């Protein structure tokens, strides 16, 4: 479930990824790890912080929205509650550095439960957008992938 590659930070393509249960505590743990990854890149403090914060907001979204909370999957006859199937879902964060950009992706296999009553607004995603150069969200029936990019030479992390 865990794979990490710790190439020298000076080598293009240095990549790191980790998969965990989609829980708040795991999001915190992964946040600290992606910060440590970023710290090996010799980036400005603001960019390192932006990577930690944006990656965390994406993880927090998975925790809060991707999977039906266990307490709510109370189908009486059990079997065919589709939401129940996603209880205990997982999330993966990966961070990759190339010659031109740093890319952080967060993926899940759930379906985002729109935060009512404003399905198209999300505070965390707005924050990601504000501190990164690009934010892409690709959602399908099989999961969601959030891709956050900071480009060189001048990452727009403030």
């Amino acid at each position, binding site marked *: 479930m865990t794979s990490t590659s710790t190439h020298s930070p000076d080598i293009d393509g240095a990549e790191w990824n980790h998969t965990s249960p989609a*829980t*708040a*505590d795991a*999001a*915190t743990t992964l*946040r600290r790890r992606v910060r440590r990854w970023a710290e090996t890149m010799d980036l400005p*403090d*603001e960019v390192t*912080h932006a990577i*930690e*914060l944006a990656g*965390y*907001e994406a993880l*927090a979204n998975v*925790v*809060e*929205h991707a999977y039906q*909370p266990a*307490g709510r999957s109370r189908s009486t006859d059990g079997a065919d509650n589709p939401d129940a199937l996603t209880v205990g879902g997982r999330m993966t964060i990966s961070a990759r550095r190339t010659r031109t950009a740093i890319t952080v992706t967060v993926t899940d296999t759930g379906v985002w439960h729109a*935060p*009512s*009553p*404003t399905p198209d*607004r*999300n*505070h*965390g995603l*707005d*924050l990601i*957008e*504000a*501190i990164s150069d690009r934010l892409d969200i690709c959602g399908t029936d099989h999961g969601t992938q959030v891709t956050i990019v900071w480009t060189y030479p001048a990452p727009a992390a*403030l």
Partner: protein
Amino acid sequence: MTSGAFVDDNRRPFDTAVEPASSDVPVRVGFNAAGTGYHLAMTDASSASSVHAKAVTTQITHKGPISIVTVDGELDISTIADFAAAARPAAAACNNGLIVDLSGVRFMSSSAITELVRVFEHLPDGASMALVATTGVVVRPVELSGVDRVMSLFDNTSSAAAYIAEHAGTPTSGQEPTR
């Protein structure tokens, strides 16, 4: 304290208690610079588990009629319920106002911004709220959210206390007799 949806979407979150810092500008809090409106789309953080509970500590002190919540550690969805449990009652019980000192906060996610708004909404009528922060880790999300237009941001508690004292000059906390 309410559970479930934090904010009734049909109402502006800040139209009670205190005038925004610049009252000629419509209060709009949100990270989207285009500002299509403010919506709190966070789930209740109270269900977060407590493995990281010790990652944040809060302390309540008083400076005359001003209450101060001093926060140390990391504010994220794992710890925000602990902060809320301390700060909401402190806000409700304060006299002139509340200072939330975030100088010792090493990380702050958008869930903390959401909770600061909750805390603000617990203030009694006539009380105001100020934040103290010195690091970009806190200042950046606060400023990007625009929440600092409602609860002013300072880099030290003395300035924050002076701001609150100034805004407490009018006796708005007492109900004016109708006749």
